[in-house]
């Protein structure tokens, strides 16, 4: 029972190991400040660290928007944007400039205050999630400096909290637009995001039971030592939890097959139908920042965070590895988006309440039992061995089922004739 209640023990701890956030690193590496500023150096370092994130994080959507267009072009046998810059790499920038200069329209009879407020709320809370994500770490002396703005001891809890505020922004946008399409879209979105937060939370809980900490860096620390120590392999149930989390994450960021809130063919554009110009761009930034954030959380919780595939090899503090893993998950999201149709609203709710939530509860039970039997809270072969065996068998059976249907459909593609 101690293991179960250990979670709450950690909540009260203020210091988290010997890890120091980015501000600490800045204090180490930057030249000393003039004397009159010395008493503010902690504050200045913190502000600088925040500045770095605020400067860098909005660039992520810029890259992802282009990546999405290129990935979709690749999937759909097109070239994608090719005009602005070499291979169109400046296209997003050009679009951004275009949106910036567009007329600022607010629909008549809409709620002007809420209409203006909504995009900022959505963007702020999307970016706020990045505060607690560890992007990497380097060891200087006997201290470990983590690339994280704030090494909160309730990191994952904080992320869950701020990401649920986004839904308020969406409802605001839908309501303030004074458009029935926007309203329908935002209500769909509210229902969807509130529902899908439950499987997300429950699958995170099954990880927390194993690692016994809510601190994001603490979770990554426990996955030290190579591929096999990643939490996804720690118990068979965390393997399931990863997929539950990923599916729910797709739903939470409103992407196909769960993109009902902005279902173009049904609701025109959903909650942002009436938005144009820079406000629309803010929604776009928020959407892609969110996408990156949930993938980064999935990587942190399940795929070893910034820890490398092999033990002891952390290039540049693990940052490139972390970004690569996250971008791979983002790519999978795009791949899914450009392949699958969209679910209907009742089917979406069915999937959540009838399948994902029961499976998540089953996971928590399973993780508990697994920990009692094998002691999965410490990384050793005693617990890992059986887990890997179960996972391999399960994946084998699953793949056999999946490929049973398509075994006979061998196709070859012929090139398009040039007539």
């Amino acid at each position: 029972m101690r293991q179960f209640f250990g979670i709450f023990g950690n909540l009260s701890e203020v210091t988290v190991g010997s890890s120091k956030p980015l501000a600490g690193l800045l204090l180490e590496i930057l030249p000393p400040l003039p004397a009159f500023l010395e008493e503010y150096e902690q504050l200045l370092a913190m502000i600088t660290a925040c500045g770095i994130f605020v400067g860098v994080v909005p660039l992520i959507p810029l890259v992802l928007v282009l990546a999405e267009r290129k990935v979709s072009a690749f999937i759909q046998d097109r070239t994608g944007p090719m005009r602005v810059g070499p291979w169109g790499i400046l296209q997003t920038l050009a679009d951004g400039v275009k949106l910036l200069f567009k007329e600022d329209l607010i629909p008549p009879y809409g709620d002007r205050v809420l209409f203006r407020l909504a995009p900022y709320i959505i963007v702020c809370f999307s970016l706020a999630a990045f505060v607690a994500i560890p992007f990497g770490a380097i060891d200087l002396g006997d201290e470990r400096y983590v690339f994280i703005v704030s090494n909160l001891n309730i990191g994952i809890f904080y992320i869950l909290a701020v990401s649920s505020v986004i839904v308020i922004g969406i409802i605001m946008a839908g309501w303030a637009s004074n458009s029935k399409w926007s309203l329908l879209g935002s209500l769909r979105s509210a229902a969807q995001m509130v529902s899908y937060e439950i499987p997300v939370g429950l699958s995170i809980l099954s990880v927390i039971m194993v690692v016994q900490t809510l601190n994001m860096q603490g979770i990554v620390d426990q996955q030290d030592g190579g591929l096999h120590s990643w939490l996804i392999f720690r118990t068979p149930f965390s393997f399931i939890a990863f997929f539950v989390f990923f599916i729910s994450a797709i739903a939470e960021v409103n992407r196909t097959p769960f993109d009902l809130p902005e279902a173009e063919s049904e609701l025109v554009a959903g909650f942002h139908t009436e938005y144009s110009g820079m406000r629309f761009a803010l929604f776009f930034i928020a959407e892609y920042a969110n996408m990156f954030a949930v993938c980064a959380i999935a990587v942190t919780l399940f795929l070893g965070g910034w820890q490398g595939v092999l033990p002891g090899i952390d290039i540049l503090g693990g940052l490139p590895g972390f970004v690569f893993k996250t971008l791979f998950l983002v790519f999978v999201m795009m791949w899914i988006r450009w392949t699958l149709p969209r679910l209907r609203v009742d089917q979406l709710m069915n999937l959540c309440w009838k399948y994902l939530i029961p499976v998540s509860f089953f996971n928590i039970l399973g993780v508990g039992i697994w920990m009692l039997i094998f002691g999965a809270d410490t990384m050793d072969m005693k617990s890992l061995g059986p887990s890997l065996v179960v996972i391999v068998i399960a994946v084998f059976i699953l793949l056999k089922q999946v490929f049973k249907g398509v075994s006979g459909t061998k196709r070859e593609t012929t090139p398009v004739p040039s007539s």
Partner: protein
Amino acid sequence: MATEESKFIEVQPFSDEMVLSMGPQHPSTHGVLKLELRLDGEIVREAIPHIGYLHRCFEKHAENLSYPQIIPFTDRMDYISAMNQNWGFCLAVEKMMAADEKFSGVPERAEYLRVLVGELNRIASHLLSFGTYGMDIGAFTPFLYAFRDREEILLLFEEICGARLTYNYIRIGGVSRDMPPNWLDHVKNFIDYFEPKVDEYNTLLTENKIFIARTVKVAVLDEDMAINYGITGPNLRGAGKKWDLRKDEPYSIYDRFDFDVPIGHDIPRIGAVLGDCWNRYKVRMDEMKESVRIIRQILNQKIPEGPIMAQYKAVRPPAGEIFDRSEAPRGELGFYIVSDGSVKPVRLKAKSPCFTALSALQELSKGLMVADIIAIIGSIDIVMGEIDR
């Protein structure tokens, strides 16, 4: 008449229902259809289609034009399958002209060319239907795949008649011009390329679990209802009725070709029932294969040499009236022509298959969800240009 006019939905005060105006500018009403929806949350209590946004007075125009001048107007009815629209009109006029001694009848070579372009256009039309249906359901990629392949057909048409959308190719008594050299090779290249693609699309979209969940058992249009509404074409065949004018009342030279008429089926494996959206959609996928079969037979047979245009003095059908129909990709396209023996028709009426199909929407959509309305509109495959004319 007063009740007839007040066909707009009355908003009930203090009710939880919402009246939503879907269209005429809406991404998936396939043009300029306007639907007035009475919604209870997401559930549709009533859906009233409003048409006429693309009305261009085709029938009135036709009364002031000579018969050959009307053909370009038929292009603009169902612009997705303009060849078949040209053909339908020309068939009716030719049938009237048959009484004229100076009219020598449509030459063999022209008949072959007509079947060739007609079936190619049927593939192009069904491809567009398949692509946009995928997009309605939320899958964007099939749309671009369909357009990629449709583009090849448009290039073929561009070669043979110079136009890509409004062809004005099939004329009264024949076709406007002979095919360019090597055109048949290009057709063959396309057919060889396209045939395996249909299977690929079936794996991509038709058999997709989400697509099946969205379309199976949705908006069941059974055979009785279809016949009562006068619905024809793939929508009728999807309800299980084996009725295709090309087979049952063969016109042109369709009796020379061997092809099947695909119909819908109850498929317990995926739960599909006769006449649901999935079956209507599947019939179109199967019809593309049958069109490929017909084109292959033409390519294998030798197309006779000879003229491509009938001999006649002027298009002056003898006085009288006629109703003639042909199998366009969206169903039976009928033309009713009244002639007084002059060069212009006294009255021309087009019977549009899309119009009858759309008329069933109101009954089909009751109690379904907003997303299902989109699925229905896509599955009955309407083109507003033909409905409004």
